[in-house]
């Protein structure tokens, strides 16, 4: 199993918040992650990554020194920072079967989060049903998110043009009432090919 990248610290039915294990390897925007909770892997799509002070009452201050150099000279500063990421829940693993809809309950707090392996990405992106789920969530940068996740799935498929075409058609179908949105996603994925 790949190395864990974080731990769940807040959950809702449709999304969860996790804290990254270290500052240097935060998950990518639009990547697929898995939260292991009560023996049921729950899949999320990372839609927001941010770095902040661990103390909500204290903001980080500008030092005017390059980040690497600053951490070398004053390693304690790193201890006061954290990376957190939010993921939209897009499915779960039901005893070996990947279901592209919401699980009965979200992952529990303190569940560990892992990056999805290649096979999981392929399975999750097989029918692109998740784009419909994330489109329904308010406040998400849907155009960027859909394009980023499709580009990632495309790369995992070793740049299979047929998949890109299928994904584009799915987008056109899902967003047929929002042509401008569909158009901008399609433009973003076609650049990647």
């Amino acid at each position, binding site marked *: 199993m790949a190395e864990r990248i974080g731990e769940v610290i807040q959950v809702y039915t449709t999304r969860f918040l996790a804290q990254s294990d270290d500052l240097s390897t935060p998950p990518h925007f639009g990547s697929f992650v898995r939260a292991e909770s009560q023996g049921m892997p729950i899949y999320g799509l990372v839609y927001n990554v941010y770095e902040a002070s661990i103390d909500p009452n204290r903001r980080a201050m500008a030092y005017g020194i390059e980040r690497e150099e600053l951490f070398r000279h004053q390693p304690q500063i790193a201890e006061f920072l954290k990376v957190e990421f939010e993921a939209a829940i897009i499915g779960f693993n039901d005893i070996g079967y990947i279901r592209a809809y919401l699980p009965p309950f979200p992952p529990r707090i303190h569940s560990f989060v892992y990056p999805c392996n290649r096979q999981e990405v392929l399975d999750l992106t097989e029918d692109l049903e998740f784009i419909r789920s994330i489109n329904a969530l308010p406040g998400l940068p849907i155009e960027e998110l859909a394009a980023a996740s499709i580009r990632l799935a495309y790369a995992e498929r070793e740049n299979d043009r047929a998949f890109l*075409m299928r994904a*584009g*058609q799915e987008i*056109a*179908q899902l967003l047929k009432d929002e042509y401008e949105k569909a*158009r901008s996603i*399609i433009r973003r994925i*076609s650049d990647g*090919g």
Partner: protein
Amino acid sequence: MAGRSNKIGTIVSGSLLSGLEAKLAEDVNVEGISIGRLIVVDGKDNKFFCLLKDVSLEATNEDILLNPPSDDFARRVHAGVNTFYKLAIQPMLITTQDPTGDDRPRPSTTVPPHFSPVCEATEEDVSLIFGSPGITNPEIGSPIFMDVPVCLNLEKFCKRSNAIFGKSGSGKSVLARMVLGYLVKSDMAITLIFDMHGEYGWSATSEGTGSDDPSLRQLLGSKIAIFTVDPNSPLYMRVRPDYDVQIPYGAIEIADLELAAGELGLTQAGIETMYRLADKWGEEKWLARFLDMDTDELSMAVEELKVNDQALGKLHRCLSRLKRLPFIRKEVADDTVDRIMNEIQAGRHIVFQFGRYNSMLAYILVANILTRRLHKLYVDKTDLARATGIDVPKPLVVTIEEAHKFLDPQVARQTTFGTIAREMRKYNMVLLLIDQRPSGIDDEILSQVGTRIVGELGDERDISAVLTGLPSQGTLKVLINNLEPRQFLLTGFALPMPVVIDAKDYDEFCREISLGSGIIQDEIERRKTMDELAAKVYGDDEIIFD
């Protein structure tokens, strides 16, 4: 018949009245879909035979039309989702999914369910609709884009008056020769052809190559009798006509001259004067006497009849044109109509030719005079046959070219051709109209035409005229507008549904009809086998099947 391989779309909406609409499948190239195609919709229990009448571009969203996809990838992605093609199809016939021998396709009275697959018709579908080729059901072409025979049911064909329309160069003469050739070969009817341009006798000049194509006499030999008014024409270099025709002045009625009023330059006053003359001098004699008069005699006639001298002079000049037709004589040796009737009784088919006298005047006069007499004889014969219970005579198919000259609304009610077109199928006499100007034909006659074979037509009025009295005119109009030379729309009584065909190759027709090859050969073989079988079973006693 689920899982046909040639599916091209899915039914999405429509009605029986206005036609069905189908969405074209995304993997089908729209440029390969042309109107006039035969389409089959696979319903749950039934198959629907339809005609493709229109293809349209559609979009689900106005925005995509305002901001069209900029690159090929985006165009392909949106294809089938935001942009798609709609097929308008007209349901025509319906049959069960697995028809047994007795199930003939019947007119469609309902529509297939939503999302029924739409497929291109296959060979089996076409033969289910139009039957398999045979001697009474000859192949006259194939549906456009297909290589499957479309057959014409001759039994039905000769029960009604029929028409072949098309502008010159559309191939209507060649098709007419084929239809008539098959009619002769099948012996379903006797044909009488008024052959204005000498195309149905020995040979005809092919428009494409300029060479001589064999025509009916060459192909069918002694089954065809050639009558001519011009025995010295170069037409008869290779074959002698069977009969020279002469017509006595006495046989010409005023109604015949009225029909040719345009050609003779007759005015209404002239026509009235003719009636005066006929009253005075006798219906059979006046014309000969009038044409013999010189100037002095004319002035005497003016006094005798109390008519305007200028009017009479003009009438004389007009009617004198008849003198230029040498086959119209005072005295004739025998009666042409009797001869024609004898030939008809002997089962021969008649081609009536005009040689060098192929003026409209000669054509109208002769065709009208002969047909009027034949009509009387046929009515008497049929009535007699019915009264005494003997077999009624075989149907007589009278073929006339330039049909609008005989059937224009002004004269159609009076001429024999008008009567035949309206009534005569009851007396086993029908017309085959060949014309390039159908708009000149009376509406009432057009609506009585049983089977219409329509080639390329240029004029909008002609197209509307040929559709008179037909259902789904909108669809058919589109089909006619898109015809090319040698393509024909077939619709009406002898066809279960309208179909656009590429006419059969003439050389193939010639081979089939003269050598008895192909279907006709098969039929001969079949009959021979049956005769042999009969001989085996019953010995040499005269028992005839069929």
